[in-house]
């Protein structure tokens, strides 16, 4: 390596480290977490080994029963046992109780275990439970990713749709993207005239106007969301004013609705659309519009054929930013939305802090990332000019 190359490497080293440490490693780690499946093998190593040889028909041989009793009664598995019970309970609700009962009785059981174990806990006479253990003894699993798409793996290993009374994730993803698309559209419609107006002002006036855009931008999201909470509540200022003026007979339900989510999210995200638009519009000299006018184009034609295409990269850049930020929104819908308005991150938080199921956290995050990426790529293909949005 020449000294020059070495210097260039050193110069980009901080950025490279940042990208690897802040981007590639976490995403790689998330990918692994979404598919790794170590719990059952760690807690039941002997059972996993015996069941590996089992054909999966009827009940497994005595060796499997003995291995299971030894694994569960053994001293070494104190810490891995809990993780294994929760892992299997995730696949088949109720398994945790069976395993906890088995642990309580394991020490007092006597050979042959294929008779004494089902006698003590009848569920072990059911091949399904054994198949469940066998299926989940493999080092990787697709069940988190599948569950995040409302698909379950049955004990036999076949794929089934999650029953409607528990199927939530498809709905959740659809809702997340639906809300995000609307927020993006509303932001674009509101930001375009605003940015245009600011770009026509004198430098001095424009800097004051920009301040109005930026001050809320610098305020914490939590503070702004809480402010909307107070404004929109039933006995809040907006309802009081509407009732006072006589527009409404009695206060309307504004808070805890989809409407409140849109209002608060648009308010939080609007600057992300205004700023890139303004910077693009500011650079457009009047000469193009004058040229169009001199060629006889009426104002609407000047706008549609000249100004809009010229400023579209600003719309696309802002919209991409607003959309990607909305997809991950958590605090705002949690505070001002109802239960029907929660987005994917609500569930990511649930699995992180309450259910403590990092497999599901990783699966939901990965799917969200993949779907958002896909939508952005499709949008860039479909919308002309959006491809140059980065240069804008």
């Amino acid at each position, binding site marked *: 390596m020449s*000294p020059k190359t070495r*210097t260039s490497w*050193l110069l980009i080293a901080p950025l490279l480290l940042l990208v690897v440490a802040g981007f590639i490693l976490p995403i790689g780690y998330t990918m692994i977490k979404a598919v790794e499946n170590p719990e059952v093998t760690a807690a039941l190593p002997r059972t996993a080994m015996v069941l590996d040889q089992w054909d999966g028909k009827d009940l497994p041989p005595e060796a499997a029963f003995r291995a299971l009793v030894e694994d569960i009664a053994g001293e070494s598995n104190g810490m891995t046992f809990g993780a294994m019970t929760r892992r299997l309970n995730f696949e088949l609700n109720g398994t945790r109780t069976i395993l906890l009962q088995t642990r309580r009785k394991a020490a007092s059981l006597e050979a042959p275990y294929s008779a004494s174990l089902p006698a003590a806990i009848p569920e072990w006479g059911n091949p399904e439970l054994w198949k469940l253990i066998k299926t989940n003894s493999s080092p990787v699993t697709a069940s988190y990713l599948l569950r995040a798409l409302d698909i379950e793996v049955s004990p036999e290993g076949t794929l089934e749709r999650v029953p409607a009374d528990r199927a939530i994730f498809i709905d959740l993803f659809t809702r997340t993207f639906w809300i995000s698309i609307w927020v993006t559209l509303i932001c674009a419609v509101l930001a375009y005239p605003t940015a245009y107006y600011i770009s026509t002002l004198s430098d001095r006036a424009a800097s004051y106007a920009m301040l109005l855009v930026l001050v809320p931008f610098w305020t914490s999201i939590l503070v702004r969301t809480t402010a909307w909470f107070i404004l929109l509540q039933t006995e809040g200022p907006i309802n009081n004013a509407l009732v006072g003026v006589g527009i409404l007979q009695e206060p309307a339900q504004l808070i805890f609705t989809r409407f409140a989510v849109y209002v608060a999210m648009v308010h939080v995200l609007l600057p992300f659309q205004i700023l890139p638009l303004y910077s693009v519009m500011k650079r457009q000299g009047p000469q193009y519009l004058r040229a169009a006018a001199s060629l006889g184009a009426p104002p609407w034609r000047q706008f549609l054929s000249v100004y809009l295409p010229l400023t579209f990269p600003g719309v696309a850049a802002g919209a991409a930013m607003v959309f990607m930020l909305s997809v991950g929104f958590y605090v705002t819908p949690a505070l001002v939305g109802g239960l029907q308005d929660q987005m994917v991150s609500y569930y990511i938080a649930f699995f992180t802090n309450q*259910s*403590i199921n990092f497999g599901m956290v990783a699966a939901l995050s990965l799917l969200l990332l993949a779907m958002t990426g896909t939508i952005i790529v499709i949008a860039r293909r479909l919308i002309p000019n959006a491809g140059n949005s980065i240069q804008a």
Partner: protein
Amino acid sequence: MTMRILSVLTATAAKAVAMASASMARDLTIVGFGGGYQDSAREALFKGYQEATGTPVADDVYNGEMAKIYGMVQTGNVTYDAIMVEAPELVRGCEDGIFAKIDYSVINRDKFIEGATSECGIGGTGWGAAVFYDTVRHPEGPKTVADFFDVEKFPGKRSMRTGPKMTLEAALLADGVAKEDVYKVLATDEGVARAFVKLDTIKDQIVWWKSGAQPLQLVGSGEVDYAFGYTGRVIKANSEGSKYQLDWDTLFYSIDYWAVVEGSPMKDEAMKLINWITDEGPLRKQAAIWPISPANKAVNEDPEIQKANPGMVLNHSAEGLFINTEFWIEHGDELEAKFTAWAAQ
């Protein structure tokens, strides 16, 4: 050029290492959920321990987010020593090795009420949620869970905690299931369906809350008429002038535990600390400044303290329903999914 960049990098690295090792020498740290409870605990318990033993104690606040604790233990950078946790998190954390096994040669097991000691935690304080309403707006309100579900007798908006926990139990109680059978019924698919059918009858009237401050804000502002709220906060609001009626027959309660984080560099000291702060003497001092409901038998059963603080949750066990920890560990995920699917309908 290259040499200079290298020397800057080395200096930065050296500084980072020095800072990391400086953070090792810290005070014994105890962490709770904050609020008025923790303010009183700081005065009576944490400072008391510091004075009694000469060991400096610092306290911090967290929201019960377990991901943080798991992160600490897994990366080996444990900055919390003793910590307050809810019952289901204690069981799971213990199974996952996030919390250290309690050293019962240091901690006196006999001072606790029954069921308040476990492998990885000792009972700190009882907590509960019950129906309350503003008597200024409503002189009469729901006295039982069945009343809370009765929109004919008590029309108006209701507020409940987001999620299936306490919600499904309440629905079954309102539907006539006996207290001792609630979890048996809820363990069956028919029982869960029955709970949701009952919830359907008030679905349009429910505002769901997420944080403990919300029900007070909702009832206080008139946004809702009747709400389930944490009893400690309601009693505190009354002591500050609110006129809330609280009905103990609608109580759901549980215990928060003290635990020691695995891998804490001050594990032994943390054990001594949580033993000291669950002793009778310090808890009496705390009871004088805050309506606590400790799991210490002597304090909990003291008639003087009971008289001064009628809101001690653990003294209302006859009226309330004890939230079944093991049930929620097993059924929590499935019922959360069913709850979400139901809510979206």
